[in-house]
Structure formats: structure tokens, C-alpha cells
């Protein structure tokens, strides 16, 4: 094997020159990329700003991006520079004999650890501030909104649709969902068969719908518009078709819609099982029949 490496071929000055070039190139491209990400693309990043939670997620994506992109660009710059400059061949001597560098390695450990710990702290802060960040917190949420919850919506998932119950409107059940603007909303998400997931994309809300579990998530609406609801956990054959749409409307429009639905559905509401946080499918109730979990045989009903 070729082992004609001589230290004179690899001077310290030459090494410093390479380092300066790499850092110079990296700094320029990293600043341009971060500017573009924060100011140009940032305001349009998913999932938008329809709710406080969605806005928080968008902010997190922006912050992580402006931190991650320079890391990615540094490795690219270093890698492509090395490919361009440090080429060899079968008839050329071996490379620079160096097995480590304490300063470089220490700097790398410190910088990566600092970045990671900052991101963990930042993520935790962002998780707590917007009340769970829109994720399902289970039956006993620990990050609750600072303003009182004004509307509770129960999301019941089943193969393969979502229905919504409204305890503040007589426990009525609807197949569509409208929400009022500027309102703190609590979603109580559950399932009556397998695991589903309630993903209201533009609202920044995602909570698994588990049978016999009440999974609570919060959102405060900030913008009017339509939002998409999709199931986000594989739930069987028609999982791909389990979606619908909702709207954020004015408070007056919402109140009018809800009271109208309450009157319209009154006769059906009487037949429904009593409102509960979770339900269990009836042993014989094929076709969507279900009862409160304290009464799985439906005796009381």
C-alpha cells in the first residue's frame, strides 16, 4: 500500500486557509438561507395561523429551521469543499495522517450539545405556553389555557367517520363541525371502536381517538376559514376516506347554526345514549350502537 505521506505536504498554513474558505462560504450561504426561511417563506409555513396553537407550531417550525439549516449547510459546504479539493488517485500518496484533534472535537461536542439542549428547552416552553400546543393531552390535561374554555366539542371517531357532540347544546350530535372565532375550545376526543386520530390540520390540533379514553386538546380560534379534518391513525379499509371539513365562523353565525341544529336534531338526540366522556360499543349494537362505558350493556339506556 502507498504510505508516502510526508508532513511537509500538509502545512498548518494550508490547513488554516482551507478552514477560512469553508467558513466564509458557509457563512454567506447560511445567512442567505436563514433570511429566506424566516422572512420570505416563514409567514406562509404550515400549518398557518388559524388558531393560537397553529401559530405556535408555525413559529416552532421557523425557529428549528433557522437553526437546522446552518447545520445542514455547514456539512454540505465542508463535504463539497473536501470533494473538490482533497482528491486523490491510485498513484497519489495517502492523505494527511491525523487521528483526532482535541480542540475540534471539543468544539463539536460543545456546540452540538448546546444546540440540542436549547432546542429541548425551547420545545418545552412552546409546549406549555399555548396549552399543550394542540396535541392530545389525555383525560387529565396539565397544560390548560390561561383564558376560560368557552366551548366544548366532543369528537367521536368510529370506522369510518367523525361525529361531534355538543354538551353545551343539549348533548346533540352532528356530522359537521363549525367553530366560533376568538374562542377557546376544548376538544374531547374518543373512539368507539379502534384507534383513530382527529387531525384538524389548519387548527393545529391532533389527538388520537382511543376507545375508552378521553383525549383532550385545546385550540383558540384566531382566523375565519375552512379547515380539514382527517383521520391520522390507520383504522382499517376506509381510513383514506375518513375526512371532512369544518369552518371557523363568527360567533353569531355559530350560535345560530348550533341552536338550529339543536332544534333540528332534538328527536334524534333523545335516542342517543346519555352524554359521557367515553363510550363502549354495545355487545350487540352493530352499525354504530354504543353506550356509556359505565353501562356497556346499555341496561340503563
Amino acid at each position, binding site marked *: 500500500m502507498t504510505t508516502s505521506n510526508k508532513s511537509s505536504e500538509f502545512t498548518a498554513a494550508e490547513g488554516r486557509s482551507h478552514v477560512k474558505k469553508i467558513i466564509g462560504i458557509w457563512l454567506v450561504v447560511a445567512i442567505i438561507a436563514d433570511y429566506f426561511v424566516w422572512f420570505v417563506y416563514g409567514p406562509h409555513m404550515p400549518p398557518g395561523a388559524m388558531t393560537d396553537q397553529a401559530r405556535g407550531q408555525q413559529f416552532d417550525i421557523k425557529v428549528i429551521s433557522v437553526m437546522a439549516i446552518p447545520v445542514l449547510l455547514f*456539512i454540505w459546504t465542508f463535504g463539497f469543499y*473536501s*470533494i473538490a479539493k482533497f482528491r486523490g488517485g491510485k498513484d497519489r500518496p495517502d492523505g494527511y*495522517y491525523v487521528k483526532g484533534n482535541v480542540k475540534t472535537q471539543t468544539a463539536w461536542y460543545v456546540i452540538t450539545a448546546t444546540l440540542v439542549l436549547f432546542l429541548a428547552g425551547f420545545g418545552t416552553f412552546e409546549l406549555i405556553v399555548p396549552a399543550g400546543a394542540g396535541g392530545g393531552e389525555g383525560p387529565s390535561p396539565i397544560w390548560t389555557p390561561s383564558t376560560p374554555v368557552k366551548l366544548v366539542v366532543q369528537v367521536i371517531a368510529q370506522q369510518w367517520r367523525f361525529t361531534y357532540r355538543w354538551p353545551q347544546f343539549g348533548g346533540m350530535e352532528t356530522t359537521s363541525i363549525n367553530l366560533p372565532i376568538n374562542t377557546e375550545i376544548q376538544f374531547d376526543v374518543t373512539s368507539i371502536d379502534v384507534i383513530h386520530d382527529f387531525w384538524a390540520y389548519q387548527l393545529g390540533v*391532533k389527538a*388520537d381517538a382511543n376507545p*375508552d379514553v378521553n383525549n383532550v386538546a385545546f385550540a383558540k380560534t384566531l382566523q375565519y376559514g375552512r379547515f380539514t379534518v382527517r383521520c391520522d391513525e390507520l383504522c382499517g*379499509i376506509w381510513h383514506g376516506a375518513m375526512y371532512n371539513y369544518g369552518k371557523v365562523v363568527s360567533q353569531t353565525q355559530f350560535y345560530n347554526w348550533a341552536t338550529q341544529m339543536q332544534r333540528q336534531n332534538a328527536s334524534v338526540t333523545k335516542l342517543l345514549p346519555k352524554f359521557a366522556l367515553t363510550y363502549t360499543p354495545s355487545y350487540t349494537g352493530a352499525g354504530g350502537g354504543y353506550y356509556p362505558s359505565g353501562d356497556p350493556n346499555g341496561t340503563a339506556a
Partner: protein
Amino acid sequence: MAIKTTSFASGGDGGRAVAGEKKGFRLNAFTGLIAGGLGYLFGHWMGNAIAGGYQQVIGSGQNDIAILLGFIFGTIGWFLGLGILNYPLKKMAGIEPPLEGYEFEPGVMKYFRFTLDNKVVGIQYLFGMLFYFFTAGLLALGIRTELLSPTNHIWGPATYLEIVGEHGTMMMMMMTSVVMGPFGNYLVPLMIGSKRVAFPRLEAAAFWFTPAAYIILLSALWQGGFQSGWTGYAPLSIQQGVGQDAYLFSFALLGFSMITSSINMTATIINYRAPGMRWSRLPMIAWGMITVAFTMLLSVPILIDGLYVMGLDRSVQTAMLYAGHGGSSFLWENLFWFFGHPEVYLLALPGFGLTMEILPVFARKPLFGYRTAVTGMVGVAVLSFFVWQHHLFQSGMNPDMRPLFMLTTELISIPTGFIYLVGLGTLWRARMRFDVPMLFMLAVFFNFLFGGITGVYVSDVPVNVTVHGSYFVMAHFHYTIMGQLIFAVMGAIYYYAPLYFGVKLNEKWGKIHFWTMFIAFNSTFLPLFALGLLGMPRRVFEYAARLQHLNQWVTVSSYVLGLSLAFFVVTFVWQLAVTRPKSPLNPWQSRGLEWQVGYPIPPGNFDKIPVILSGPYEYGDPNALPVADLTPAEPSAVGVSSGGEI
């Protein structure tokens, strides 16, 4: 056909024959298939006899007990038919059986038999792995074809989900299990200077679990499939038809394969290192294998427990995973991901091992920061046990654990970053040679960077609300697994073909393969990040019309990726079977011990146990000692650990 069957003394002296030989018919995969089929029929009959009158069987027309007993007896038959159980059964009967040894046997029939030669087992694994990979790859093309249109369907929702489940399960479980095989089994004994592995029967049995698992898993397609995906979440998996039994049983078989393989690998590396093979000289592939083996040993039993519970729920109507009847669907999620997340690193660690092994050879430099590299791999392996709940951030489980799991998940970036430091340090002022293996290794770093950095997004709980369960996550793990492991494996195949087959694969064809695969891979998976951020969930056969163009781009790119891999298969088989371009010995001028033994490698790997004199990565040091003395006068005089000779 005359077959040599020899026996050897116990211990580490490899295949030295100590008893005579006998001739006659020897069991093989074909007799295994026949016995396996008969075993399945027997088990199925027994299941019907036992449970045919059960209420739930009569009511549903579905007898999971018969199916599972069929699989159990089918597997026992497969093992009996292969002759794997001959040795332990005879031992139990008080008969001292002859040990089948390592005598060189020409031809290809040895690859269809239970064999104790680590190199034969390695090649069995290599072709098995490629076969499983390409099967799952074809299924992936089926998925992408369905997604050409948001509303017009090729397969229909049931078939689509069957394909999705088969693809995911085969890629994750088959690749996971076998990735240690082609390189660990073949190379580790050679790299550490041993004549054999510690437990050759376990090593060989670990491989022969995999064809049985493959057949059983594919059989699900003829039994209605399973629509739970590879994650098998309950109660959906309890609700499914008998195809789900194939899922759980084949997964369990692979679990046993992983455990047996890991026991052997761990014992081999700890106990069978040659004199002078200190831990600080251990090649990176061996570090990759021992870290992955420890990870498997601790995580896979949890998976098997979970599958056992699922089997009981399905067959004898326990309700451990079924909410409302005393169980909880959270149980399976925790058991599965306690295995599942370390598993992701089971895939990454061997890939890193291969990359860091091959990089210095083509950089013509020592590996930069050897201890940092080892710390990185060990750190990843250890931390991988503390991150599983990040898959369940939105599940509704105890929310106050989320900051902890966010922290542990992000901490894993630190040891992963060590590996990048090692990679960049090795390239620094190198004399790079851009042969095909090097191109693949550079691509490993390029691709994994996307997977690693997007992992930070996924681990952040607020961002996870947007990206969990979406195509963003799918792109993330395809970058970490296919972008890293598969590229590393491909590079390693080009690199080790001269050692395995005496063939140097054509550079021009290899570069065509590399560039088409690299471009098509990125063209396929990079847009998936955008699809996920734009709100497309995984495993759906319908999606928003506004996402059609991106999906079509991805599908066409995936076809190019498929063609690139098909090109590799054709050229690889052509060169191995027809043209056989002869390779010079050690064509890459590697210092690795495995390259010093010549070709063909003798059945016992080394004539004498070598004495290791220096590390394998001392490129550029004109005063470096050779890596080993292959003909030491008195190996025992060195006074270091046994090195495989007892």
C-alpha cells in the same frame, strides 16, 4: 451426491476435521419446504380438531387457533426438514452426533443447506436480504402506482392497505433482522482474527428463520392480508382476519432470528478476538454489529411478548389489548415502540459501521476520532431505549412525560453528530478516490443528514402535532433507513464483492447504478417532506387534489428508482454468474485484516490464529506496522485473549 460431513472439536479451532466422513443424502431447503408444508397441514388439522366447535369460531368462521398451530408446526417441520434439529435432538437422546464441519464444498447446493461456515451463512443472508428487499420494493411501487391519482384507484382500499402492510412489515422486520447477516456473519470472524463464530448453529438457524418468516408473511396476501400496517395497532389488529396471524407469527419468527443472531454476534466479538485485537483496534463494522446485537437482545423480547399477547387476544379471546374489556390499546403501543424505536437504530448502526469502515480506505486516511465514533455508536444504542414515547406524543398517554421524551429524542442527535464529525474529519485533507463504494458512502452522509435534521422537527412536541403520522414522518424515516442503510449496503456489496466472490464489479455500470439511484432516491423522497407539511397523512389511498402533481412526481421518480435497482440486479447477477470479471487480491489496498487472507478464503478463515499488530485504519503512516502477523510462530506466547483458539 457425495457430501462431506466432518466433525470437529469443540472450542475455537474452526473446521479441523477430527473424525471421518460419511456419504449420503443431506437435508436441504427443499426437504424443509416439504416437511414445513406437512407440518402446517398437521397443525391446521389439530387446530380445527381443538377449536372447531368454539363459539367464536362457529360465529365468525375464522379459526385463528388452527392458523397459528399450522404456522407453529409448519415452522417445526421446516426446521426438521432442514436438519437444524438433528444435533440437539440426538444430544437429548443421548447419541453423540457427528458435527458437520467446514470442509470446502463446491457448487451452489451448500447455500440451500444448514451449514456452519460463517462465510456460507453470510452469503445466504446476502441473497436472502436482497430478495426480501426487492420483494418489498416491488410492493412499494404498487403503493406509488395507486397514488398517481387522488381519486381513481388501481387497487381499491383493501388491497392497497394489504400492500402497504406487507411493504412496511417486510422492509422493517426482514431488513432489520438480516442486515447483521451478510456483513456481520461473514466479516466479523475475519476481522477479529477468528476461525469461526461462537455459536455456528445459532448463526445458521438465525438465517433459516427468515425464509420461513418470508413465506408466512407473504401468505397473508392470500388470506385477506392485514390492514393494520406494520405497526399492528390494537384493537384494529384484533379485529382483522387471519392475515393478521401471518403478520404476528412471521414477526415473532424474525424476533427469534434477531435474538439468536445477536447472542452469537455478541459472544463472538467478546470472546473470539485474536491476540492483539484490543477493543481500541476493533474494526468499525464489529462495533456496529456488537452495538446492534446488544440493542436487539434487550428490545426484541419485548416485541415477542407483545406479539404473544396479540396472538392470545386473537385466538383464545383474552382482552389484554382491547379497551372496555379490561385491557388497553396503549399496552400494545408501548410494547411495540419499546422495540420499534431501538429498531430504527438497529438499522442505522450497521450502516454507520459499514460507512466508517469503508470511508478511510478511499480517503486514504485514518478514521478521524476513533473513540468518538465508538462513543457515538454506543451512545445511539443506549439512548435508543429512552425515546419510544415520541411516537405517542398525541396518543393521550400521560402528558407530563413529553418534555422528557422530547429531551431524550433530541439528545440522540449528539452521538449521531459524533459520527458526522468522524466522517468530516476523515475527509479533511484526504486523498479521496471516487470508486463506486466511496460514492455510496458519501451519499450515506448526504442522505442521512436529511433524516437526522428532520428528526429534530419530529421530536419537538409542538411541531410533532403537525407532522406526526404524515408524509413528513414517512420521508424522515425513509431517509434514515433507505438513504443511509440501503446506500451503505449497496456500497458494501461493491466493496466486498472481490472478497466474497473474487469478482470486481464493473465500475462504469456501478457508477450508472449509483447516480441513477442517488438522484431518483432524492427525487422520490424529498417531495414527501412537502406533502407531509401540506397535510397528507400516511397510508391513505385518497388525498387532496391539490397534492396530485407532487404525488405524480414522486411516483415517476420511484419508477426510476426501481429501474436503477433492477439495473443493479441484472448487472450483479450477470457478472457473478456469467462474466465473472476476476478481481486482483485486495483491489482497494485496504488494511483490513479480512483482506489479508486472500481469495478464496479457506473454510477455517485462517491457517493459524493471527496476531494483531496494529489498527486497521493507519493509512498515511509510513511507519505503521502491518495489521497482523498471519503466520505467528507461537500465538499463545503473545499472552493476549484467546482469539478463537482454545
